[in-house]
């Protein structure tokens, strides 16, 4: 059985021309299996966000192909894109900038219902769906209706983003640093909800993160990216506990730990 849900072959993204040319993503290959949680880990500038945008269809790859459920992805028209986006959705890093501040919260959720094709449902049915989605993330629809995003806290906003995913039930969720702007205590709540979503909907989750600890905690498979290239990949235990590539090793050794000693003597001052 071929259970690869998303596959990238020689995926490349180049920005600019000539002297200003930067290769953000450089011939990247990967296969993501249905139902797994996988993480793409990299520092800023590693191209992980560009890769995520290409997977989402928000950016066109310069070179290479993306295969979705075994078939070459085709998002050449708005209709095909809409069809694709029913299957792949995202949660972004900064909940404060992910909302249109001029729209009420209801608009966001109603958009999802429309996208499911339930535009013609009666009003009561829609409210029922929205309430269900809100209660999934421990929010009360009655308290949220007719409110604007800025009336919510960061944690609530991010939970509402998960409610949106709950309504859409895509096959793949790309979570771009979903917890980096959120306090440590709320982080667990968000992660719990994402995991619950995966179990209930059978979703594949791709985490994009710089936090190697988080990647290790949540994922089955880990990809390490350095300057546009995937330098190491494998199961989480394999990559984190027995890293092979020097970059992975450095990355892990640079993160402060609490059980093992954090060796500061390895620090070499280099560059300007």
């Amino acid at each position, binding site marked *: 059985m071929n259970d690869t849900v998303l596959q990238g072959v020689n995926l490349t993204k180049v920005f600019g021309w000539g002297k200003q040319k930067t290769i953000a993503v450089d011939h990247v290959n990967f296969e993501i299996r249905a139902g797994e949680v996988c993480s793409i880990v990299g520092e800023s500038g590693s191209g992980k966000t560009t890769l995520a945008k290409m997977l989402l269809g*928000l950016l066109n790859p310069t070179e290479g192909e993306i295969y979705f459920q075994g078939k070459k992805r085709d998002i050449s028209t708005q209709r095909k894109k809409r069809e694709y*986006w029913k299957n792949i959705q995202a949660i972004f*890093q900064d909940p404060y900038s992910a909302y*249109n*501040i*001029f729209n009420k919260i209801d608009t966001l959720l109603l*958009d999802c219902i429309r996208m499911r094709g339930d535009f013609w449902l009666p009003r009561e049915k829609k409210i029922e769906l929205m309430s269900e989605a809100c209660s999934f993330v421990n929010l009360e629809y009655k308290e949220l209706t007719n409110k604007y995003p800025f009336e919510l806290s960061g944690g609530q906003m991010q939970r509402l983003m998960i409610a949106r995913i709950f309504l859409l039930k895509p096959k793949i969720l790309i979570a771009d640093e979903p917890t980096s702007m959120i306090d440590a205590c709320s982080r667990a709540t968000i992660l719990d909800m994402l995991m619950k979503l995966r179990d209930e909907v059978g979703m594949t989750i791709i985490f994009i993160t710089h936090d190697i600890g988080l990647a290790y905690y949540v994922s089955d498979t880990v990809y390490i990216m350095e300057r546009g290239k995937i330098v190491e990949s494998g199961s989480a235990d394999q990559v984190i506990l027995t890293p092979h590539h020097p970059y992975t090793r450095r990355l892990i050794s640079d993160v402060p730990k609490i059980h093992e000693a954090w060796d500061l003597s390895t620090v070499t001052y280099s560059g300007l």
Partner: protein
Amino acid sequence: MIHTLRQVFRSGKFVTGFVIFVSLLLIVLIYPLLVPDDPLAIIGLGTFFPPGIYVNVYDSVNVSPYTLNLPDATTKRIADKLGPKERQDMKEFLLAAGIPEEEIDIEDTAKLLDLWEKNYDPNKNIEGMTLAKMRYYQRLNNSLKGLLATEGLIVALPNAQTGQLEQVKVIEQSDYANINEVPNVRVLPLGTDNFGRDVLTELVKAAGVSLQIGFVAGLIATLIGLVLGLLAGYLGGMVDDIIMFFTNLLIVIPSFVLLILISFSIGQDKRGAITIATVIGFTSWVWTARAVRAQVLSLRNRDHVNLSRLSGHSTVYIILNDILPYIMSYVVMALILQISSGILAEAGLSILGLGPRTTEVPTLGLMMNWAMIYQAHVLGKWWAYLPVLVTIALITFSMNLMNTGLDQVFNPALRE
């Protein structure tokens, strides 16, 4: 929305600008209701009548007089014709005529006049005196005639049959006419211009027309700039390149030069106020387009736009719902600036004589143009140009003040 408005009206700068602007607007709207005259009607025969209350002399003679015995009436009458300067000039003449200095007392009016009457000779040539000075003394001499007379003036009418003048009435020096009883009184607070038109009425109309020109020009410029900026910024790629090519092309050519050329080629008789406004609008959108594009570029990659795309919204929907509201405050500010610079551009063009044709409506620029052609500034006829300048300054000042106020509300970093 309401919250934003409340914030805006809490800004002192905005409120000041707003109050000035609304006051001007109200004057422009209400004044024509009170004074329904044609603003371009020529009422004065002659140029540049100074500001003041104009009382019809014929009517004043005909109203029944009141006798008021005011003690300083004579003094005032004399002082009007014989001020300290005139007295000094007379002394100079008398000295030159060979009168010893101790005999001349310029404070004693009767004695001075007596001395003057005896010694003044219009044909006398004093060494070093210019022709102008001679004329001046002749005029002075004429105005002094009968200054100390105490009897009244006789009004006479020709008899219908004989043609003989017959005395109708005598106007005593102590006769007063009540201005309320004089049927024809015209207040000209700002006098008349070179054509003899009431400057205030003209100015109010001109301010209205100039504001219209500003609004039309500003709206056109902002609309073009907004649409092009949104398309270039959001669509990017080819569309961006083409739009930016034209924008940069227009930036290189100073827009005022372009404005002059277009205005000139249209021809005087085809240039109406709205035509000029349209031309100004079509030449001044470039900076708005560039600024909007820059804003959109930074908004385009925001997560809420990405989220909207992922929700399957169309490009038009995203531009209208996810981009436009975010830059609306900016666009309003750009519009205000465009309006005020539109007004200035019209003034600039008109001063050069390339403004709207002169026969239909006045504009602030045209008024400046007329004042300049008839040398109001050289002749010291300040009422022909200073109020126009002040109006232009007030309009642009109030708009820029509103703009700064808005900027401080929308950009908290600029708050004091």
